[in-house]
């Protein structure tokens, strides 16, 4: 809502949770959290936790939605009522409808949809605890789930948020920072080719600041992607 910078969010170079401006919160990731899904993952950035499950490719109903020359991807981003301090009433709202769409568009370029005409890949993202940067956390979980599901893909998708508080650019906004930021930007890329698949920016920035934000995002997405890859490989080489 209103971006107020009257709250001091960086003191002696440290953020409210003790991080330096360029630090990402501790990240944890695990696979196979939903037994019957074709692929699933849970990802936490600090206190923000997202669970993603992928079903499909599977037969698409209603039939009129089927495309004879390509498959489709459907996404649902949803916040659990208890994920935030003030209970969120269950079900889709305007915010989640928009985020579901941008998450879909962020993932879609990575998938060879043409490999499964008339079918769908359904990606469900549930935010079970929210402390800022929920959509990017959800995208990171969804991308892991897609690979685990064996979906045919060009690349993975990795996302991170970058923002500006107290005139300083910071990486991975927590909830307090998000509410009081001068600007926040959500970015997703396909790391192999550095293609942007999601870019949403709020707040006020100069062009130079936008370009700096993007280079921060790129650098951090590459680091996060290394963690994603390590986890996926460990699934089959561990023990």
């Amino acid at each position: 809502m209103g971006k107020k910078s009257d709250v001091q969010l960086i003191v002696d170079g440290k953020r409210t949770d003790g991080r330096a401006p360029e630090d990402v919160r501790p990240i944890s990731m695990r696979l196979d959290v939903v037994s019957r899904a074709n692929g699933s993952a849970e990802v936490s950035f600090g206190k923000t936790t997202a669970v993603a499950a992928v079903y499909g490719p599977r037969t698409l109903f209603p039939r009129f939605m089927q495309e004879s020359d390509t498959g489709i991807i459907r996404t649902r981003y949803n916040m659990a009522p208890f994920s935030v301090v003030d209970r969120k009433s269950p079900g889709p709202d305007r915010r989640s409808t928009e985020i579901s769409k941008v998450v879909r568009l962020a993932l879609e370029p990575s998938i060879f949809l043409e490999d499964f005409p008339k079918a769908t890949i359904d990606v469900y993202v549930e935010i079970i605890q929210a402390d800022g940067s929920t959509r990017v956390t959800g995208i990171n979980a969804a991308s892991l789930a897609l690979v685990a599901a064996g979906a045919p893909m060009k690349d993975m998708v990795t996302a991170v948020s970058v923002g500006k508080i107290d005139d300083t650019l910071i990486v991975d906004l927590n909830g307090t920072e998000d509410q009081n930021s001068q600007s926040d930007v959500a970015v997703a890329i396909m790391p192999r080719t550095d293609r942007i698949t999601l870019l949403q920016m709020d707040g006020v920035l100069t062009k130079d600041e936008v370009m700096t934000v993007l280079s921060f995002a790129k650098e951090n997405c590459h680091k996060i992607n290394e963690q994603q890859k390590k986890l996926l490989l460990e699934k089959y080489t561990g023990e």
Partner: protein
Amino acid sequence: MDTKLVLPGDLIGERKGRRFGRGTFVEGENVYSAVLGIPRASEVEISVIPMSGVYLPVMGDRVIGTIKSVEVSGWTVDINSPYTAFLPLAEAVDEYVDTSREDISRFFDVGDVIFCRISKVTKGMNVQASMRDMMSRKLFSGAILNVTPSKIPRIIGKAGSMVQLIKQKTKCDIYTGQNGLVWIRGDDKAKAIETILMIERESHLKGLTEKVEKMLG
């Protein structure tokens, strides 16, 4: 067994005039993996065996299917895939049948299980099945096991060696479908199922054959 794994977007190698098969894609001269799996490169083809994923039919595959509905002149077959296959009467029955007078459910009825071949797949994923060969048949009773389709080759083994071993030791009839279904009937069904599930879990690890031998005693 080589356990080097690749992820989507990983470079596997240069194409050098070779075919690029399942689980891969090409950009310029470079062949990349499209899935998490084990790369396989020969002189003619580069492919990746995926570690997971649903079954997408390819012509020539041998699959286990369940009759979903009986149509006027054939059957719709569930092949454990986002797509169903159509089995035309002429691809299933040798004798002459007058479809205007006769209900063809006396050959195959809803729920019947068949071992058949994918004979045609269009670009839009219209799939045709056929039973016009020596191996295709109707499968009576028995249990059906659902495994990751890409693990089927490991269950079959080199020239059928692995599945032969299980058949011998458990005295079971076993049919393996490339669509990830395994049909089993016999005395020691439980032992066979246990073994196959172990192979599925550990198919990418070394010393699999020894482990199977040990397990079957």
